[in-house]
Each structure stands twice: as structure tokens, then as C-alpha cells.
């Protein structure tokens, strides 16, 4: 810890407003995701706890607002703040899990392609090329309509979209890494391929992935929100932020703006925070800018 506080990374962090704001936003979401159920009074998924009489209350500071419901309520009398907290948990969970799956699959494929080259490389990279020529939301939409909806299906669709960036990045770094003499030296030392890849190549290609992974969580939150808004995302029983926006959207033009505005604002702040911090990481971890 002492070492970290003295490191160049922390030195630059303290001087970067965007990094501090970004990480603060991420921290707020992290706290709500981890401890959300204990921080809000109501469980919006528990229908028994809802009061229909409290439906469509405006935010507390407006006329007719109820101090129990800071951000107002929706048509079933759900506290919007509680919905947003629970929705953010689902959104972040999906974003992080899909990122981890993409990262794992993409890294393995990228290592194989870069290390063995030849047919394996061409095969994996052509799939990646094809995939990159379609907008990711289109691929996700297509997959969702093929495999159906549900959180697991969303994860499959996002992973299918997301592995490509890792595979390409890892392949590129691997190609330049295996030209270095220490990899040659490992072969000369009699190390089997598996060990060379895991112990020597992998640790040396990981750094750029940290940046990609961070920014990708934000991208995935957005894609998931779009899918849910389009009605092919998460089921109504597990509403993510995107689905909350969609639900509120139905009554938006009746002047009940808070039902979809606050979930939307939450998406924006989450993605904004992730991108701010991701930009900082990119500047920090890019050896060419050092």
C-alpha cells in the first residue's frame, strides 16, 4: 500500500480530475451494487411490499411528492430510487460478467492465433473480421432473436460480440512478443509450448487488456440497455436500467418523466464514469506516451 501511494500511477491519478471523478462515480455504483438492498427501504421486486395507492408519485421535491420516495414512484408504486439501485446491480453484473467471458475467450484465441500462426490464425482472425464488419448491436439482436431472451442469453450475445477486440489485441502483442529473444530462450531451454504461452507470453500481453476491459464494461452496459429497450434483453422480472427506461418510456408523454429519466441518468453516469477512468488508464498504461 505504501508503495502504491508513492507510485507514479498514484501521483498522476491525484492530478487528474477526470480520473478522480470517473473513479468516484464507479465507486458510488460499486457501493450500490454491493450493498444496494441494505441502502434502500423497498425491494421493488417484491410485489407484496408495493402500495398501489402510491403509484406515479413525482420526486420528493415536487408538488405532490412523498418524502418516502425521493425520486418518485412508477405505475405499481415502486420507488424509482430502489428500482434504479436494483436495476444497476443487474446492469453492472451483466456488463462485468460478459466482459470477463469475452476477455477469457478472446485472450485464449488471440494467444493461439499469435503463437501458432498458420491455419489456426487465419481461421480465428477471419471470423473476427467478419464479426467486425457488422455493428455489434445487430449481431446481438440477431443472436437474441435466435436463442431467445433472458440474462444468460444476453451474456452469450455480449460475449459473442466482445471477444474480438481481445483476440485481435492479444494476437498482435503475441506476434511481437514471440519475436523477442526471451521467448526463443524459453524454447531453447526446452519449455513446452503450453508453459511458454502461460508463463512468458501471457503476462507480457496483459497490460493493454486492462484498458479494453474497463471501457468494455461501459459499452456492454449500453448494448444491454439497448437490447432491453428494444424488448429482446432481460426479462421483466429482472429489470436492468435499460428495461426501466423502456417501462417508463410508455408513460413519458403523459408528463410522468421521472420514471424513465432517472434510470437513464444512471446509465449515463455509470458509462461516463467508466469511460473517464478508462481514458486515464489508457494514458497511464500506454508505453508509447511515457
Amino acid at each position, binding site marked *: 500500500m505504501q508503495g502504491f501511494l508513492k507510485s507514479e500511477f498514484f501521483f498522476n491519478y491525484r492530478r487528474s480530475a477526470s480520473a478522480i471523478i470517473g473513479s468516484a462515480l464507479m465507486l458510488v455504483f460499486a457501493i450500490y451494487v454491493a450493498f444496494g438492498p441494505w441502502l434502500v427501504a423497498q425491494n421493488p421486486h417484491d410485489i407484496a411490499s408495493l402500495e398501489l395507492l402510491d403509484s406515479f408519485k413525482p420526486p420528493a421535491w415536487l408538488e405532490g411528492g412523498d418524502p418516502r420516495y425521493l425520486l418518485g414512484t412508477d405505475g405499481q408504486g415502486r420507488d424509482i430510487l430502489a428500482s434504479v439501485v436494483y436495476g444497476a446491480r443487474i446492469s453492472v453484473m451483466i456488463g462485468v460478467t460478459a466482459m470477463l467471458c469475452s476477455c477469457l475467450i478472446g485472450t485464449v484465441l488471440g494467444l493461439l492465433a499469435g503463437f501458432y500462426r*498458420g491455419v489456426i490464425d487465419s481461421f480465428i482472425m477471419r471470423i473476427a473480421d467478419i464479426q467486425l464488419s457488422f455493428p455489434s448491436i445487430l449481431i446481438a439482436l440477431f443472436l437474441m432473436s435466435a436463442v431467445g431472451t433472458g440474462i444468460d442469453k444476453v451474456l452469450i450475445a455480449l460475449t459473442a460480440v466482445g471477444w474480438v477486440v481481445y483476440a485481435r489485441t492479444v494476437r498482435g502483442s503475441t506476434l511481437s512478443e514471440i519475436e523477442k*529473444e526471451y521467448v526463443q530462450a524459453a524454447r*531453447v531451454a*526446452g*519449455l513446452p509450448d503450453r508453459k511458454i504461452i502461460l508463463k512468458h507470453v501471457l503476462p507480457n500481453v496483459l497490460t493493454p487488456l486492462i484498458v479494453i476491459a474497463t471501457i468494455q464494461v461501459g459499452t456492454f452496459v449500453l448494448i444491454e440497455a439497448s437490447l432491453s429497450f428494444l424488448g429482446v434483453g432481460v426479462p421483466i422480472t429482472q429489470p436492468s436500467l435499460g428495461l426501466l427506461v423502456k417501462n417508463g418510456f410508455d408513460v413519458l408523454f403523459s408528463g410522468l418523466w421521472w420514471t424513465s429519466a432517472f434510470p437513464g441518468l444512471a446509465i449515463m453516469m455509470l458509462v461516463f464514469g467508466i469511460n473517464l477512468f478508462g481514458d486515464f488508464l489508457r494514458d497511464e498504461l500506454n508505453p508509447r506516451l511515457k
Partner: protein
Amino acid sequence: MSVQKQALLEVRDLKTRFYTFAGVVNAVDGVSFSVGRGEILGLVGESGGGKSVIGFSILGLIDPPGKVDDGEILFGGVDLRRKSEKELQKIRGKEIAMVFQDPMTSLNPLQTVGEQIDEMLRLHSDLDGKARRARCIEMLSDVGISEAEKRLNNYPHQFSGGMRQRVVIAIAMIAGPQLIIADEPTTALDVTIQSQILKLMKQQVREREASMILITHDLAVVSQMADEIVVLYCGKIVEKGPKQDLISKPAHPYTQGLLGSIPKLHDRQDRLTQIPGTVPDVRNLPQGCNFRERCPFAQARCAEEEPEQHALDAGRSVACHFPLEQELAP
């Protein structure tokens, strides 16, 4: 032929080719030589002469589009070309080790030098963790690194170039290989460090009664180190023989040219002699002798007929129609 010590490595008629888009490159074209036990062999030639390819061919590490097409690589009497990849992995590092040119890139930047030396022992010995650590410390002080125990936990960037090359040598030596292939081990180092490292390598090899193949473009380095010298040109051996004879009495004009381009301390020279021209395109070698277009002594016969390797006195041989006979001033 003089009485030969028993050969540890015998390479016979080795042919390594690269099948590239622009044509077939005969990187190593029918090279034969042998390394006796406890002997240091210098492999000399210009860049692109196929020196490093020989090293990798011996270890079976030629990647496509390259291929060892022909020849025998007898190590302790067994042909390495007939071994499976699994068997070769046991030989690499344990029986034959390699030292690379650039110590800046030949160590993994993310592992401590201790881990990297230890990796060899874990792979090629049955010692337990404690014994391995003791061996690593001993080895590191053997190659002249002080406070070895502390330094084991350092990362490569905490060492200078010369120190790193010492670590690389420690890694190569620790499993007790019988043969060390050193590929331009001092080219990337400061001149002041070069001779230290060379001395260290020679001492280590002699102490362990191992053999070494020293690959270099620098005849001055070879003359300090080697017992035998093999001179390569365009993937072929142009001349070989014991160091002393070859240096004082080069038979091939190319060897003479290489020797002439080394500055000498006691001669008054305004200009160094140089070999005119450049190495011919290996995909498109001239007919006859490969060196003919750069050779000051070339005659009509050189353009028609490729010279065969033929024996001279005292274990020497040369591939030239008109071998030189004059003795160079020492």
C-alpha cells in the same frame, strides 16, 4: 589429420532451406563440422551468412517456412534429427544450451532473474525448492554477480547490460549442458564489457569441461576464444582449421579479407582494407564460386566451377581453387 578428440557434436552435410515467396533460400548449404569435447569452435561469417540458422538447426527450432532438408546432426553419436519434439525438449537446456545476442530482450521482463534461473532447474533436475535456490545463488555468484542472494529477487531492468548477459550465461550453464551455443554473445555489449563476458564464458566452459560453439562476425573475438574456426560464406564453409594456423595463414581470400579488416594496434595504416562489394543475393547465387565477384584473385575457372572443400595440412581444409599460401605478419 591430427589426432582428434572424440567428437561431442558432429554435423554432416547440413542443409537448411527457407521456402519463401521470392524463392528458395539455401541458408545452410551442405555444412559439415565437428566439435570435440571441451573444445570451443568459432563460427564466423558476415551477417546473413547462415550462422544463426546453424545453431537453431542443431536444436531443431527452425520454424516454417524454413526446414532442415538434409544432413545428420550427431550429438554424442545420436542423430538429433531423428528425435521427437518431446525428446528434443529434454535435450534443449539440459544437454545443449544457448546464449543470445541481446541481453535486453533475452530475459522475461516480468519475472525475477531468480525465477528464470530456477525455471531451468525445475525443468531439468529433481532438486527440491531449497536445493534449487542454493544452486541458483551459487551459479549467480559463479558468473560474477555479487550479493547473489539479494539479486535473485531483482527484475531484469534492475541489471545493466553486462550483468544481464551474466544472468543469461548463468541460465545457460545451470543445468550443466555439454554444449553451449553462443549466438553473438557480446555484440550488443559495450566494448569494455565484451572481453569480461568472453573471459567469463571461456572460464565457465573450461571449468565444466563443456564444449561451445561461438557464433560471431567478429574474427577478433574468435581469435581470443576458439580452438577451431569455421568460416562461412553464403551458407557454405569456405575454410576451417585450428585457430592459430587459420589466423596466421588464411588460405581463402575471404578469410584474408576478414582478417584485413580488423584494425591492428602496432601497424601504421591509413585505411583499413575492406572486402569490396556485398554478399550476393542468396536466392540467386552466381555460378561458380560464390565469392568470385568480390575476390581479388578470381580467375576464369572460378566463374565456371564451384570449388570443392579440399584438405590442406594440419587438419585444415579450404574451398578455393587457388588457396593462398603466404603467411600474414602477426
